[in-house]
């Protein structure tokens, strides 16, 4: 029965590939590089292209999804990394005993909150706050210098909001593993540093953190992988752009994961089944990307001796 675990993963990969095959035949690889997702004329008779049936004028370019996915995830990591590292420093160096347990528990609870509840909170709390006050202020200050931050700030749905929500969701991963690593540092290392006259923070900066470089890189990539596949929260705050690339940091975006979720209803209307197949192609692509990212992260973490 134990074999069912690896078999289920293989089954997911194989069946997604089979389901995506008609779309792969129709799209080739060009679909990766243009932003033109169009299900075609639903009321016309299907035509045959490359040996498969599709609706006239159907097109499945997903460049805007790839850009949206990468931008939101990298931006999220950019926010989450310093936040997670500093929070870990606070927990490991600033707190001890029951206070540390309680503090760590608070941060780890962030990882337990369901994604859709983050979406709800982002939709009802974050979007009005950011859209009405923070973003106009950002545009008025940084926006004068950097065009990415300039007007129009939109309604609050978009790239920056999605990244902030994602950052909060992946922070616990970084904090928990770094905290454990700092706490587990041999006392002799600390004492050696202190005896040379370094302060506590200098020991941390010069001795402890440099020793955790691999762990930090590995866990960041792991967090990136988590952000790439996040669906519901992004779906609710990203504005779900179609066929458009963001010009400013406030513009609506779509990610591969959220697009699969939002497009299934309309894809089911396609009588040729090509739209469902094209979504399977996106799912396959997303799976390949996250598997590659995760395998890289696991490899690095394994080398750093950290195993969850």
């Amino acid at each position, binding site marked *: *029965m134990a074999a*069912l*675990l*690896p078999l*289920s*993963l293989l089954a*997911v990969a194989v*069946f*997604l590939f089979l*389901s995506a095959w008609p779309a792969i035949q129709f799209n080739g690889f060009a679909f990766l590089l243009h932003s033109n997702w169009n299900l075609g004329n639903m009321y016309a008779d299907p035509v045959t292209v490359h040996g498969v049936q599709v609706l006239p004028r159907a097109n499945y370019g997903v460049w805007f999804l790839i850009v949206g996915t990468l931008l939101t995830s990298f931006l999220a990591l950019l926010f989450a990394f*310093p*936040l997670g*590292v*500093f*929070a870990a*420093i*606070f*927990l490991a*160096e*600033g707190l001890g005993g029951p206070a540390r347990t309680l503090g760590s528990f608070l*941060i780890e*609870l962030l990882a*337990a*909150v*369901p*994604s*859709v*509840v983050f*979406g*709800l*909170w982002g939709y*009802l*709390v974050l979007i009005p706050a950011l859209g009405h006050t923070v973003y106009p202020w950002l545009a008025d200050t940084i926006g004068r210098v950097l065009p990415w931050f300039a007007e129009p700030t939109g309604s609050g749905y978009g790239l920056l909001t999605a990244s902030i929500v994602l950052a909060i969701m992946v922070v616990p991963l970084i904090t928990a593993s770094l905290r454990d690593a700092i706490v587990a540092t041999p006392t002799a290392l600390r004492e050696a540093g202190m005896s040379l006259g370094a*302060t506590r*923070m*200098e020991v*941390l900066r010069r001795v402890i953190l440099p020793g955790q470089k691999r762990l930090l890189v590995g866990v960041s990539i*792991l967090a990136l*992988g*988590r952000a*790439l*596949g*996040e*669906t*519901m929260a992004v*779906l609710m705050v990203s504005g779900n752009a179609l066929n458009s690339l963001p010009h400013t940091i406030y513009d609506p975006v779509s990610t591969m*994961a959220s697009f*699969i979720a939002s497009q*299934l209803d309309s894809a089911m209307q396609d009588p040729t089944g090509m739209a*469902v197949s094209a*979504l*399977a192609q996106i*799912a396959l692509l*997303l*799976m390949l990307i*996250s*598997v590659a990212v*995760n*395998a890289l992260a*696991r490899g690095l973490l394994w080398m750093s001796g950290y195993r969850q």
Partner: protein
Amino acid sequence: MTPPRSFQIRRSRRMLDAATWAAATLSFAGLAFVLLHLLGYVLSKGLPAMHWSLFTQDTQGIAGGLRNAITGSLVLTGFALLLAVPVGVSAGVYLAEHGDGWIGKITRFLSDVLVGVPSVVLGYFGYVVMVIGLGWKFSLLAGSITLAILMLPYIARTSEMALRALPSALREAAYGLGCPESRLVWRILLPSALIPILTGTLMALAIALGETAPLLFTAGWSNYLWTGHFTQEGVGYLTYVIWSFIGEPYPSAHQLAYAAAFIITFMVLIINLSARLLLLRRR
């Protein structure tokens, strides 16, 4: 009395230290604030929306109760647990007892990879294979199997860790008394590792309860109580209510979404908390 000048730490060093402390404190405070704000928000919106009729009525369009969704969430995750626990625990036993060869290494790696597969991808797999391919339509079985695949690696991992932590003297003593391996696993290893395995299973349950994306494609939705059919019939669940009803322009729909968010969040937190307490008490 100030120390001699040569013993003082230079101001630039002290400033950098203070800045690090400040950033650390602010980061932690910010994250804690976000968590407490989120929980407080769900509580303050959800509590006024709670009503006895939520538990006695089914959803009618965008009003009514949540009986169908609450039971649906429980039935979906319950069946998923029923499927995932035997497979996950036996994978854990295999990995802990015989997992040092190349088969074990590959299995462990694939299990780690499975954790990283986005849940929406698993959901789409469930959709093309079970909902369409096998013709089950949106159904309980499709939803439960998808959730079970999601839970598998977590259960396998915690079971493996729990069994590996048991002293090898236990195994040697059992073999020394002439115990066959099946008896060793069933009567000695699994009972000794019961608590950590239970903890891991509870954590996986909490994750599955809070999932939405894989169920959108597999369980569908239903305004009625689960009728006992495993296929052909959609099942309602709480997270769908949150996502779908908050976008409706009607206050009654919003009230249901708040109530659903309240129920699911605190159910997940309580399960998470009890799993941690279980582990703490044992130490």
